[in-house]
Structure formats: C-alpha cells, structure tokens
C-alpha cells in the first residue's frame, strides 16, 4: 500500500522563504506608497495656499503693498491667510516677497525703461511644510499689475459687443 505523499522539507523551506520575501517586499511598499500619497496631499495643500495668497494680493492695492514691504522685499500681513497654518497635522508657513521688475526678466520687456513697482511688481510666494522628517517647499511666482485691484469683480460677464460690418 502506497503512503500519502507530504511536502518535503525542501519544498516547505523554499515555499516559506518565497512567501516570506514576497510578503516582506509587499509590506515595505505600503509605507512608501502612503508617504507618497501624503506628500502629494501636502503639496496640493501648499499649492492651494499659495494660489489663495496670490488671489488675495490681486485684491489689494499695489501701492499699499509696496508701502508695507520689509527688508529684502518681504511682505507681511496680519491676515490669517499669511500666517502659519496647521492642516491635518502639517504646519504650512507662507513667505511672500515682492520685487520690482528688472532686466533679469528680460531686457526687451520694457524698452522704454523698467516700470514703477507701484504699477507692476513681481511676487514670489513660498510655502514651507514638513512631511515626516523632511522639510519641503513649494514656490509660486507671478507678476501683478495695480489695475487688478481696479478691475471689475472677478467673474466677468463676457463682452457683449459683436463685430459690426
């Protein structure tokens, strides 16, 4: 009578090793993926914060911003939007700087001479935050014109004029 065949020791060891290594590898992937997703979330949050600050700057008078600049063109504003904010346990710290338009942007931009910073200025918004142990930052840069303040409310009606023959 034939005896039922069981796993050999070698098969068992090999299978255990194989599964063990695989599970280990898989288990190691999850924290990385989670960190990656978390990083993405934080970056998106920082981007949104920077964009909100730019929108707010557009609604302020450029001349007043220029008056309130500190050393190095640093702009401070007591509004909570410009202060460090904690969202989902992460602290986001915005830093806003304002600089005049100069030739570094391109000499051909203003052939007649660089404009008055009270008319048009360059803004840099940097949002610093920490994910885990690493310090991250996102930087947004744009140029704002004082007429943005004088413009009609955002959400313009489309121009009504049609071309008349």
């Amino acid at each position, binding site marked *: 009578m034939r005896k039922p065949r069981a796993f050999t020791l070698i098969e068992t060891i090999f299978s255990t090793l194989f599964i063990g290594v695989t599970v280990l590898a898989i288990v190691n992937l999850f924290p990385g993926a989670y960190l990656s997703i978390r990083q993405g979330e934080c970056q998106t949050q920082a981007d949104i914060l920077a964009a909100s600050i730019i929108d707010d700057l557009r609604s302020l008078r450029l001349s007043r911003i220029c008056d309130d600049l500190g050393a190095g063109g640093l702009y401070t504003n007591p509004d909570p939007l410009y202060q460090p904010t904690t969202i989902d346990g992460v602290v986001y710290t915005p830093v806003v700087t304002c600089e005049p338009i100069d030739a570094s*942007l391109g000499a051909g931009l203003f052939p*007649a001479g660089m404009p008055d910073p009270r008319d048009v200025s*360059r803004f840099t918004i940097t949002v610093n935050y920490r994910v885990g142990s690493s310090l991250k930052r996102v930087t947004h840069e744009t140029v704002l014109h004082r007429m943005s303040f004088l413009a009609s409310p955002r959400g313009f009606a489309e121009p009504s*004029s049609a071309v008349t023959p």
Partner: protein
Amino acid sequence: MMGSTSMSDRRLPKLRRRRSRAAGLPTVIMVVALMMLLAFTVVGVAFNHLNLTFRSSNSMRAQELSEAVLAIAIERVRLDVENFGIKGTADDKTIRLSLDKLPEGNIGVLTFDSNRAKALRVPVSTNNRTDSSVEGSNPRFGVPGQAVHLVARAEVGGAVSVMEALIEFPKFPYSIASKGPISSSGGLVVAAVRQGVDYSLGGPIDPSALEPGSLVSNSQGSGPAVTLAGDNMILGNLESASGADLSIGTKIFGETKLYTDPVPLPQLDATDYDPLNPASTHGAVDPDQVQMVNSGAGILSVKGYNVFGQKLSDGNYNPSATLTVDNGIRLKGGVLYVNGNLNVSSGGVSGKGAIIATGNITVHGDGEATTDNEAALVSNGNIVLSGASSEKAKFAGLVYSKGKLQATNMRLAGVFVAAGEDSSVEMADTELYQVAEKAKVEISEESTDFLVPLSKLTSTLTIPKVTVDGVTVAEAKTLPGATIEYDPTTLKQHLSDYLNPYSGPTEPKYLFKFKVGSVGYRHVLSATGAPIMVPTTADDKYLVGPGQLGTIKINGVAVSSESELRDALVAHFQAANEGKPLSASQLDYVNSLATMYFQGDQVVRNYSQAAAEESALVNTGEGQSAPFHWRLDLSEFFGGSKPMQITYWARFQP
C-alpha cells in the same frame, strides 16, 4: 459467476484508497502572483496620485505665468496704447516671459503678430485703435472700438494655460465721480447702459439693458466720503478715498473699495469756452456769429453761438446776473454761454448742444431726453437738477460741475462729474445710468447739409389695367421704383457761385434755377415764409444742370449719358414687370423720365425749395447760416493718462 470479481471491482479499492494531495508550489506561486499584483496596484495608485499632484501644481503655475504675461502686457498698453502691438517688428509686438523660480523650461508668450502667433501656438492679441469693433482671436466676441484684447499662453512642466483680458478706454469710466463727498437720502440707482442698446428714460431702464456702473469719491475729509441712507442700488463698484457709511438697504453688486487712491478727474473751466473772449482756449468766434439772449417766457431754442451777460460799467460781466428761461431749453446744435447763473424754471433741457455757465445752473422739469441727445451742462458753480416726486424728470448728456451737484427726482443718462475743490454730490430718488459716449459732445453742421438728403430720387412706372372685351385681365400696378442718385459735392464746393444776387426778406440765400419744360423757375419766400415757385429767366449761371450734379447713378450704377440712363430705366422696369417688354406708350414715358432725370430738373427743383426753406429757418433764428463746429471731449482733460478699465479677464475659451 457467483463469488467472482470483475477487473473494475479490483481497481476500485485502489481508487478509494487514493488521498487528495495538499497544495503545492504552483499554488504558492499563484498566490504570490496575486499579492504582487495587489502591491503593484497600490504602487501604481500612489504613483498616479503623485503625477496628478505635479500636474495640478504645474497647471496652477501655468495660469499664474499666463496672468503674469497679461500684467506685463497691461503695463505696456498703459504706457503706449497708440503704438504697442501696432508698430514695430514681430519682436516688438511680442512678449516672452520666463520666471526663474518656476520649473525649468517654463515660458509665457503673448503677441500681436499673426505669423508669430502661429509659430508660438498662441491666439493673436489685438489693439483696436478704431472706433468700431473688429474681429479678434476669440470668435465669441469682437474687440470693441478703442480696446485691446490680450491673449497670453504659458507652459509649465507640460501644463498649458491660456488666459485673455479685454482692456477698454472708456471716455469716462464712472457713472458718477466726485472730488468731494457723495450722499444719497435714498432711491439712488447707479448703473451703466450696455453699448449699442436702445433705451428710454420714460421709466426705469430694463435690467437686461444694464451693466455695472460705478461710483467714486475722492473725498479724504473727516467724515465718510460716501453716505448712502435708505434704499440704494449700485450695480458696479463703490470706490471711496476714505470711508463709507452705507445703510442696510444699500445693495452694492460690485466691490466696495475703501481708502483707495484718489482717481484722476478731468479739469474744465467754463470761462475757457467763452465765444466772445479772444483769450478763451476753446473757440473764440467772430462776434457776428454770436447771438445775445435774454431772460424770457417760452422755450429758448439754441442754435449756433448764444451768449447771455449783463455788462457792468467797468466792462466786465455781472457774475450774479441770472438768465431765466420759463419753458425749457431746446438745444439745436448750439452752445449757450451764460455769464452768471442759469435758471430753467420748467421744461428742462434737451437736444444736442451745450450750456456753459460761469455761475450756477438750475434746471427744473424734463426735456425730451432720448438716446440721441447730446447735451452738456458745464458750470463753474453748482448744478441743481430737479423733477417732481410724482414723475421723475429726464436728462441725457454730460453734467460737469465745479461746485455742488444736486439731483432730486431725476432719471439721468450720461456722465456726471463734480470735480471742484469744494465739490459734493447730493442725490435723492435719482437714477444714474452711465452712457460713456455722452462724455463727448460734438456738433458739426454744414450750412448746406440740406442738399444731401434730397440727392436721391425714386422713379416709378404704373402699368395700367388691361381689359379685353370689357373684362379686366390684369389690374393696374405700380412697378418698384428705380433709385436715381446725384452727387451734390461739386455744387457744395462752388456754392458761392449760387449766392442770390437779390436781397430782401423773401429771397433765399442761395439761388438754384431749374426748368419745367422750357420755362425757368426758382423759389422765393411768401409773406408767411413758405417757399413758392415763380417763373424766372433761365439759361444763366444759376441754372443747375448735369455738369453740376456730379455722377448720376441708377440703382447704384453710374451712367454717363441720357441714352445710358434710358436703357437702364427700361431694363429696370422690364425686370420689375416679370420680364415683359414695355408698350410703346410706356417707352415714351420712360424716355421723358430719362431726359428729366438726366437734366436733373426734378432734383434742382428740390434743392431750390430746400434752400428757400432753410433761409426761412435762418430768418426765424432756427436755421444755420454758417457752418458750426464745436466739441467737448471729457477724455481729453485727464492729463497724461487715459482712463483704462479691465472689462474682461478669464480663461481663453473660443
């Protein structure tokens, strides 16, 4: 056989004794493969999430970069709107911007050059220096006159953003602007009328015809610059150089901007428009062209230059003198200059023209304010406009005061400015509708304008009823007329040749002779001032013939001889008669028409009559004896910078 077993029976115990084996290596491998698949899915999701994050971040940056390009372009437009985007090379018309704190390779572009736009894959921008709208790169709307359409494209890390903005240069960007405080006790409406929309001031203008109109005060005194009590509606922005006291019933549909920089206001001085002062900067004229006016009952019609003033012993005008008009002023392309004050006790002001006063202007009641009114009220003192509480009075035009501007129970369409050092604005139950075109009043009338509308005649032909044996087979019908056009340019250029040598109250200024058959005729004025035909000698220099009537056209096609005109008339009527040939009698009639039209007898007859009618009007003070040109454009008084307004800012969507 009994007790014997078959072959299958001997195998069965073996089958029954076989046990199922446990899972082996292939199964383990399958399980591991499934787990790996799960792991890679998780990794893939994380990777995609990161990708989306970067993409979203770059998309935001691309929009900010395109808006940065627009900001640069706006400044270039502000500095040189007449030339930017119009003159120079393709490079001069192009803006390229790259910001060093954005990911490498970021670029924002804007160009007014169509070839460069194709190369850069950006819709072309347009600087429209004409007064009418033109096609832009967005097929959804045209670029209005005196406006700039900017389109900027930016690319950051593969994400693309295209933004557009429309910059307009309104003649005047506000519904009402004051150097001093603005107050309303209630019932204030501030809005603007959409361009090109017909409106009536007989009642509140339909909201569908309105767009935002703004109110601005430059007052930086101790109290709030703007005080609105009761119920008020501002469809646009409220801008104040200091604070504002707004009641709960005040609705502001735009933005409330407090502590703004004072806005530039135009600076006019009424005395600069004195037609009798040789030193005036805006049109001193020959005193013979000026008519003096006095106070009186009735309607005051203003055509040409009219001046009021009471001279003092020292030769100066009495600044306290008042011109009182009891039944309204009708501006008929004229200017009324008042040395002192003007008081219109009823009947209001309407028409096309200007009233300029060194003192105060007070107007009660309304005129026939319509969309084509172009009236200007300019005062170095106060302006008071008032209607009745039962029915608001109307005024359309430009109101400019260097003192107090007060409006009560009024419906106003135009532009309203109080720009003096001590100016203020007080309103009660007043609707203000900004119509930016009213910031410019231009009167340009030629004394021979009466010739122009008469230079087009229509020639008809009637086909009589057709009967056969007493039975009507075709009814009479009048064929559609042919249009015969003359060009009075030559006549107008040599008008002095037709000055009437006869003088007298019945003689018109210009003498045009014409023929009816072989008899010459002309027009004179009857005792009642109506034109009448009288026979006269013809065949002299006053007889107007084909040589003076310019190119004759029939239905837009020029003809150079009587036979050409006849052939064209025949062709026209035959075509109108379904191609049927004209009968002999009809052809004779058309022949006579051709002769008459080619000689121009009919049109000269009309000229002659109109010249007599115009002279009759001149005699009564309503006609224009000399060309009259006068203009006031508020936008010219802003000094260095034209007012600009961003009227559209959005993502480019064709």
